[in-house]
């Protein structure tokens, strides 16, 4: 254990030094150093000047002799301010020390004593935390009496509950670690476990919080002294100086402003330094804790490449629902742009169901988002052609286009739990679409929503409309999501892994629902999935994506027997057979997927491909038409290498799934 302790200590020093390298850390550390140095030096050097009474220079304003003037006894305020640093800092540190010590006791006692007493202490701490520190401080100030000692005790005890709360949380987190369990098994007693194992490991966050807490104590002390409840004359700290200065604010504003400023600067120094260290540690402090939530999901700039874009205005039934040529999606990355989608081209006919398969990172989701115009800043989308129902989508959308997208382009996302707004009723979330895009009023829109919920087989639709998403089961939520998609009259439903987050039993219901909608209303479906079996079940055509490109495009019926691309064949070989646990994610294709920030030259699959040769690593194969309705991007396409066993098993598997669901 000795070693682990020293490791912690040296690591701690390194991390605190790292904090000094951030701008905030460096500035606040310098400020803190000056405050602390002044606290030590000033009382030694200047106590004489600070306490020298000069009745000839009473209540003077700032002058070269007295930089910020004099008080009612003619004492020099500048020196008094400097000397007061000593007492102010000393008292704040003393109070913080008491707070930490009392907090440690209150926070660790629950883990040492019997459960019942532990609970009682915890409950007490929880109640005490709810009361503001100043109120507690005044309460204790009454008990301990007005004055310096009383105020130190008061502020110390007032900060104890929040330290206790933090300690409890930290101790609880550590107690679950493996090494504590090991120590327990080795017969190390409770107290020893706490002192030797747990405390050293929670020391660092505690010290950081104590640093921030010292800033708070400094301010609190200034407050109490200002009220006359803290330091009593003839002693003086900044709060006391402020108290004395405030009366004459008309005559002599500096006497009140200067100590106030000193308190703020010193408080900030402790506070910012603590926060800076906390940031390098990743310790959550009350404010900075959520900073990490700044995620980078981004709005696109839909850039139309300068190539000529033919606008087709007709949208008769014979035309495709969606056409895309040379679709690129890229994000700025630390080492140059990352391009998850690199030149995807295909089109979707009315009522056609097309699956997009590939491992995670193959660009299938980004493709779906780009088609839906939902790629967020700083991502950017470009294409030589992107049309939905004959409307060009590359220029910034007009009102009419938004309307078309809103009524005819539906999205179904992976996690129905997260995809509904938790604070709005399901009815309102569905009705919104009709109110916005179909010009319905609220009543009509809700009636339509009820009708749509019935269409997706949600029982008791009227009652369900008034419920919140959390009152729906997972499968029902996903059906409601599809119901939201068919509020208008969709021509295309893009479903991104719509069943991955669901139980196996409800997966089939959702898939059948999608199929039924497609049949009934001639709706095209783009089904994004990592699961070949599932895609084979619903879709007529399959697009296989690898490293941001379509590597194979073939009819679903040909998938099992006529797949030509080595990657498709590897995916098929990885399809789970009947003995495999189907809850598990897709069995892996050997090797690692290509890194979208470092796509190699030549065929991106070459490093994992059994058939790769020198040609493959040199030149990237294009997606070329093989036979009717079958495109492949590979230099050495061939049928059925090492996947002879797949067809039968695939069918068995699909049959099993279907049998189970019906």
């Amino acid at each position, binding site marked *: 254990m000795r070693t682990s302790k020293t490791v912690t200590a040296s690591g701690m020093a390194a991390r605190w030094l790292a904090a000094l390298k951030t701008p905030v850390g460096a500035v606040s550390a310098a400020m803190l150093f000056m405050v602390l140095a002044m606290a030590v030096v000033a009382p030694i050097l200047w106590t004489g000047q600070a306490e020298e009474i000069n009745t000839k220079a009473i209540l003077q304003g700032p002058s070269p002799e007295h930089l910020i003037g004099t008080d009612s006894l003619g004492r020099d305020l500048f020196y008094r301010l400097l000397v007061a640093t000593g007492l102010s800092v000393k008292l704040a540190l003393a109070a913080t020390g008491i707070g930490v010590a009392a907090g440690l006791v209150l926070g660790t006692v629950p883990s040492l004593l019997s459960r019942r007493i532990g609970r009682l202490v915890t409950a007490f701490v929880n109640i005490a935390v709810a009361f*503001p520190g100043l109120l507690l401080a005044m309460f204790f100030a009454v008990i301990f009496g007005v004055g310096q000692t009383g105020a130190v005790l008061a502020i110390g005890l007032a900060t104890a509950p929040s330290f206790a709360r933090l300690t409890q949380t930290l101790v609880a987190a550590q107690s679950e670690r493996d090494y504590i369990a090991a120590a327990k098994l080795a017969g190390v007693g409770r107290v020893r476990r706490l002192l030797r194992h747990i405390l050293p490991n929670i020391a660092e966050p505690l010290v950081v919080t104590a640093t921030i807490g010292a800033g708070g104590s400094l301010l609190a002390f200034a407050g109490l002294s200002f009220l006359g409840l803290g330091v009593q004359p003839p002693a003086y700290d900044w709060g006391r100086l402020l108290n004395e200065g405030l009366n004459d604010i008309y005559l002599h504003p500096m006497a009140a402003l200067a100590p106030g400023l000193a308190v703020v600067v010193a408080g900030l120094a402790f506070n910012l330094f603590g926060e800076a260290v906390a940031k390098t540690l990743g310790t959550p402090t009350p404010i900075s804790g959520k900073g990490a939530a700044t995620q980078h*999901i981004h709005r696109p700039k839909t850039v139309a490449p300068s190539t000529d874009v033919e606008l087709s205005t007709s949208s008769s039934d014979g035309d495709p629902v969606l056409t895309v040529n040379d679709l690129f999606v890229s994000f700025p990355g630390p080492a140059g742009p990352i391009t998850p989608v690199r030149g995807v081209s295909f089109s979707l006919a009315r009522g056609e169901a097309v699956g997009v398969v590939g491992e995670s990172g193959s660009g299938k989701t980004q493709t779906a988002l780009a088609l839906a115009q939902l790629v967020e*800043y700083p991502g950017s989308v470009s294409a030589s052609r992107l049309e939905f129902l004959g409307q060009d989508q590359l220029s910034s959308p007009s009102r009419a286009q938004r309307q078309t997208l809103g009524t005819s382009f539906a*999205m179904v996302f992976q996690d129905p739990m997260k995809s509904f707004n938790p604070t709005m009723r399901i009815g309102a979330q569905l009705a919104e679409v009709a109110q916005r895009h179909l010009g319905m009023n609220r009543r009509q829109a809700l009636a339509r929503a009820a009708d749509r919920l019935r269409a997706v087989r949600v029982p008791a639709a009227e009652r369900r409309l008034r419920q919140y998403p959390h009152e729906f089961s997972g499968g029902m939520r996903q059906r409601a999501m599809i119901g939201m998609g068919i509020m208008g009259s969709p021509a295309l439903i893009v479903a991104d892994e719509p069943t991955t987050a669901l139980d196996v039993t409800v997966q089939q219901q959702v898939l059948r629902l999608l199929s039924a909608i497609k049949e009934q209303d001639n709706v095209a479906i783009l089904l994004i999935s990592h699961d070949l079996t599932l895609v084979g079940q619903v879709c007529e055509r399959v697009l296989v994506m690898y490293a941001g490109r379509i590597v194979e495009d073939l009819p679903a019926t040909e998938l099992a027997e006529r797949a030509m691309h080595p990657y498709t064949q590897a995916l098929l070989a990885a399809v789970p057979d009947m003995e495999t646990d189907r809850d598990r994610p897709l069995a892996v294709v050997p090797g690692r997927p290509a890194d979208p920030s470092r796509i190699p030259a030549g065929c991106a699959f070459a490093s994992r491909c059994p058939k790769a040769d020198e040609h493959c690593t040199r030149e990237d194969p294009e997606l070329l038409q093989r036979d009717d309705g079958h495109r492949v991007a590979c230099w050495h396409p061939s049928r059925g290498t090492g996947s002879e066993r797949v067809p039968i098993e695939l069918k068995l598997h699909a049959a099993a799934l279907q049998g189970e669901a019906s």
Partner: protein
Amino acid sequence: MSIATRVVADATDSPWTGFVARRIGRLVVSLWVLVTASFLMIHLIPGDPVRAALGSSAPGALVEARREALGLNDPLWLQYVHYLQGLLGGNLGISMTSDLPVAQVIGDRFPATFEMAGLAFLLAVLISVPVGALMGVLTRGGRRRRTELAFTSTSIVVAAIPEFLLAVGLVFFFAVQLGWFPVAGRSDASSYVLPVVSMALGSAAMLSRIVRVEMLSVLSAEYVRTARAKRLPGWIIYFRHALPNALTATLTIGGLMLSAMVAGTVLVENVFAWPGLGSTIVASILAKDYPVVQGVVLVYGVGVLLVNLLVDVALGMLDPRSTIKEG
């Protein structure tokens, strides 16, 4: 506390009643702790509080008479019973300095404090919600880094200045230098400006940072993407979908802040010689007028508990999930 709360909670089944019962159970226990603490306060003071209050030169007979009048010679449990009985009847004791009933003293002073804290909270919310939400929208997904930096650093500095020091600064600038507002006291509307602003500004800065951070995390949530997929206009996405969710998360911290504000009035009142509970409690502590101190501590404590309860209830109404969760 857990036993009491559990019994109440188990007796019901609907999530709302269970939720309300739990919160009330917790309130009752907290109240009891508060009342007991305020009762014990006077007994925890080392030495004889009456002697301390009257001074060492007061005749022994007078001290004894006072002790008798305050009931300090009864056994502790009896005093506790009397104290509780008194509280139920609205009797908080008699001030030792003015001989007025404490309840009357509090009644006189309470409105001034309540107005100040209430207005300050209102102002803080009115500033922070729009500012925080706007900053969240403007800087979402790492946009406008400079705006973000300027906003964050300004708000950190403003939030770090304690209310009473801000008050001193504001007095100097707006009352002494510019003469726009009175330096102290409570009279017409203009006398409210500086106290309320100095109470509100720091909280507004802190709260707007929290609103922004919450807004950012909500804007990157999947349900906002769903809303965009529905092609709703920006303002509906921000106001109807994002803001309520950002505010539920803000509310918890906002509530903590409001209860801190209740106590923060003490210092600001003393800067402005505001005739509220804050200046009363300080004067009473200095004069060792313990019944008044006890009473005011009780009022502040109850204020804090009520604020916490209101926050919980508001949270329960805004976010239907929180009623289900054991809190």
